[in-house]
Structures are given as structure tokens and as C-alpha cells.
């Protein structure tokens, strides 16, 4: 069953809710290895997205995602702003004019977003960033779809891969962002960006309840 535009809007609403619920948690994760603002910034950004959503909900999925990206870009700040902003803008460009998405479309959406993150932030795996959660998730989604999984099951696999990627950031020494300045002291802490990326994918899964 194709993913509807309404489900994409629900996804963005659910991201806002889950970020809001985890605002203090994300900020707390950002405290020992960053500058204690990740939850605050993400919450500010997605609150703005929620305000903008009604004005674009009737357009198309590409426009909805692009508007999300531009809103994040201009309201989040820090490194997450341009990274998540670019993620949604690229995802939106790839989904231009679409009213519903197949499993392959969803893969293209996420892969385009991740390509944008790579171009902007130039991360490598194990740098201890959001990329450590995002890339495994997209690869897992592709593999699951190729094995004939339903969209819901494939996203479930992707979320599990993101969770593992997030957990795997704990023993890593950060090589990007502010955490990198701590050197070995960044070891033992979970990366806040990988954590928020997992939450965003979890929200996607939660918005696909009606998918078989």
C-alpha cells in the first residue's frame, strides 16, 4: 500500500511530538560532549515546522518536505540546522510533485536526504554523528525492500538499524563537531545527533500504522 500525503504530514507531526518529549533528554546527551542545546534547538525548529504545516498540507509531498527543510534551516541553528535542513530539502526535491510514495520512493527520499547530509557535513562512518544512525537505516531499508518486505516491515528494520547505529556511537571517539575537541573524553557518551535521527525514523514508523 502506498504511503499517503497524510501519512507524511503525520510523520512530521509525530517528529515534533517525539522531539518535544525528548527535548530534555537530547539536551542532556549534548551536555557532556557538546554545548547542551540539541533538544532546545530541535524543539524550536520542529515547533516552527508544525506552525507551517497547515499552509502546505494540501500541496504535494515534495513541497511539504522542502518547506520543512527550509523551516529547519532558518530556525534550528547550530550544526543540526543546516544538516537536517538539507536532509529534508533534498528529500523534498527528490519527491517533487508526488502525492503518494511507493517503498522505492521512500528509499529514494531517505537516500537523497542522507546524500545531502554527506555533501554538507562530509561525515564518515564512526565519526560519532547522525550519519552513524542514518546510513545503516537507509541500507537496511533497501535490503528489506529488496527481500520483498512490506513498507512497514522495511521501515521497522530501518529503525532497528538506526537504534543499533545510535547505540554503537557510545564507544566511539568523536571526530566531528564539538564533541571531537574532547578527544578520548567523548568515549562512553551516546551521540545526540544519532539519537535524534533515530527518533525521526521511529516517528516515521509510528505514522505508518495503517501500512501492511
Amino acid at each position, binding site marked *: 500500500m502506498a504511503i499517503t500525503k497524510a501519512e507524511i504530514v503525520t510523520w512530521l507531526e509525530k517528529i515534533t511530538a517525539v522531539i518535544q518529549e525528548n527535548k530534555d533528554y537530547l539536551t542532556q546527551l549534548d551536555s557532556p560532549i557538546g554545548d547542551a542545546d540539541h533538544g532546545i534547538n530541535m524543539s*524550536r525548529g520542529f515547533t516552527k515546522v508544525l506552525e507551517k504545516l497547515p499552509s502546505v498540507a494540501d500541496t504535494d509531498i515534495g513541497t511539504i518536505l522542502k518547506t520543512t527543510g527550509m523551516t529547519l534551516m*532558518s530556525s534550528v541553528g547550530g550544526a543540526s540546522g*543546516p544538516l537536517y535542513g538539507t536532509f529534508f530539502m533534498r528529500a523534498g526535491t527528490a519527491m517533487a510533485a508526488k502525492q503518494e510514495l511507493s517503498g522505492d520512493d521512500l528509499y529514494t527520499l531517505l537516500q537523497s536526504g542522507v546524500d545531502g547530509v554527506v555533501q554538507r557535513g562530509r561525515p564518515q562512518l564512526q565519526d560519532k554523528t547522525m550519519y552513524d544512525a542514518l546510513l545503516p537505516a537507509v541500507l537496511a531499508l533497501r535490503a528489506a525492500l529488496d527481500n520483498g518486505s512490506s513498507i512497514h516491515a522495511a521501515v521497522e528494520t530501518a529503525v532497528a538499524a538506526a537504534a543499533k547505529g545510535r547505540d554503537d556511537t557510545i564507544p566511539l571517539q568523536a571526530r566531528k563537531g564539538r564533541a*571531537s575537541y*574532547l578527544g578520548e573524553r567523548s568515549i562512553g557518551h551516546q551521540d545526540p545527533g544519532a539519537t535524534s535521527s533515530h527518533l525521526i525514523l521511529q516517528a516515521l514508523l509510528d505514522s505508518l500504522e495503517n501500512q501492511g
Partner: protein
Amino acid sequence: MKKLINAIDDVVKEQLEGMAAAHPELRINYDPKYVVRADAPVKGKVALVSGGGSGHEPMHGGFVGVGMLDGACPGEVFTSPTPDQMYECAKAVDGGAGVLFLVKNYTGDVLNFETATELAHGDGIQVQSILVDDDAAVKDSLYTAGRRGVGTTVLIEKIVGAAAEDGYNLQQCADLARKVNQYGRSFGMALTSCTVPAAGKPTFDLGDDEFEFGIGIHGEPGRERYKMKTADEITEMVALAIIDDGAYTRTVREWDNDKGEWFEKTLTDDPFQAGDEVIAFVNSMGGTPVSELYAVYRKLAQVCEAKGLKIVRNLVGPYITSLEMQGFSITLLKADDEILKYWDAPVKTPGLRWGA
């Protein structure tokens, strides 16, 4: 948390409203937020724009004015501003000779300014972006995001601002900014943490008998933690960390206006050498009183003399702060004739003013 705040969400906005009321020579835009000279754009002059998280005042908004910045973009406290601010600010100050972005090397600032550079270019504005990465507390660039932009930022804004006023073109301004960055090195320490209003509690815990060595300017923890020492001992540690620092090599990105794309450049900063003339800058992190800064300067002058460095100019005071953090940073900048000429040139901003 005890702070002079009305509402946490209004901290940056109300600070700007206060600046606008106090300084009619500035023009302040609120959506998106930026500060420009009231006489901007200055026709035919290269415009300098910087920006970064709030909480470092007087930097950057306090350095907008004749002989220094044309525009500044304040982010939320300790959070980079966003590309729309930088882009709108660039449009507001471009007098036809181009815009130079001065970007402190923090991942957020860099990513947002890179996006803004691409937006401004798309609008036909000649634009260049120079990175400030002078923090000697960061040893390597291979496994970190590279040296952070700290104290030298203030000196670059002053020196390149004066050169732009004197008619330097965009390339000359960029070359001078790059040179000053490569000639400057800084190192900071903290006696206390600081509290970001939105977070409500100190960013890190530091015992009453400890200090943090090698901090940045965002309340991030430093390189090492030591038991408390005397002013002389700490000053000597900080000064030597700068003076004895070896060569530093990293790769930076600059913008190609003709091709409309980024290109990479590998730069190496040479260490200080006996006989160098320097500008010495002792800066308060916000909570350390000027009286203690002079105790630091006293010892710094002795260390420089012993190491054969000749201090030819100095700056002492709170110029690049970290909210109410107690602590200081030292910046040493190797000075040549060009740098001294523009250091001595008139400047008229809320935060720095002489000869005008």
C-alpha cells in the same frame, strides 16, 4: 539560575532592542536578526560580516561600526545563526564591492555560513569566506573539527575592518584576514562554568579547587583539569601553550566566485620565534574582573620578554566572552607593518573605539 532575564525566549531579542536604543549609529533587523551600520551599504567598500552564537558580547554586534564590521548576525545563545540571517545581512551591507564573511571554526557556524555563501553567490553578490581557527588548545586537525575560532577573531575584525575602510578590495581583505588568522594563536582557561539561560544549569561541573585548561568560548569542557594554582603559574601555562606551540597544518575551504564552488586549500601556521613583535590580547571570559586580567598581563609580559617576544600593542578587557564564566584567554598575534597600520587606524564601534 539567577540572571537578569525577563523571559528565556526573549533574551536575544531584548538584548538587541537595548542595543538599538543605546546605539542609533546601528540599525537592527529583527526578522531575521542582524545588526548593520546605520549608513550601510557603504558604496564601493568591501563589507565585512561576521556572526555566531550570542553570549560572547561585545562580539560580534558590538564590533559593528566604522573601521570594523559592517554587519553581524547573532544566533541564539551559543548557537550558530542561520543562513537566512547571513544572506539577508549580506544583501543589506553589500555596497557593490563584495562581502567578506569572517567565520569562526565551529561546525555549526561553518555549515550555516557555507550555505549563506552559496545563497549570496546565487544572488550575484561577490562573496568570500575566511575561517578563523586560532585555538592552540586543539592539537590536531585530523581527528577533530580543527582549531576553534576564538580571540584572534576580535583582532581580525579590527584589522581587516580598517583595511576595508582604506579601500582594500575583496581579495585583498580575504588575504589579510587569512594572514592575521595564521599569525594569531589563542588559549583559554576557566575557573567556573557558565549557565546557558535555556538550559538553566551550568554546562559543566568544576570543583572549587579546580580549573579547566584549554577551553573554548561556549562553556564546553577543556583539554585538561588541574588543581587550582596561582595567577602567575596559570598565566605561564597558558602563555607557554601559545608560544611553544608548533606548526599547525589543516585544510580549509574557500569560495571560487568565478566557478561558484568551494575549493580546498592547505595552510600551515608557523610557530612564534624569538624576535617576533606581537599584539598581546588578554581577554575576560565574562566573569573575571579587569583587576585580575592585569595580574595576568603582568606575568604575560614577563613570559614574553623571557621568550624574546616584543609586545608592541595590547588589548586588555572583556571582548569575546562566554556569558558569566570566570576565566581568561590570551591571544598573541605576530605583527608586521600592515597589521600594525590597520590596528592603529581609527575604529568607532560600541565595543571598541579609538582615534575616531
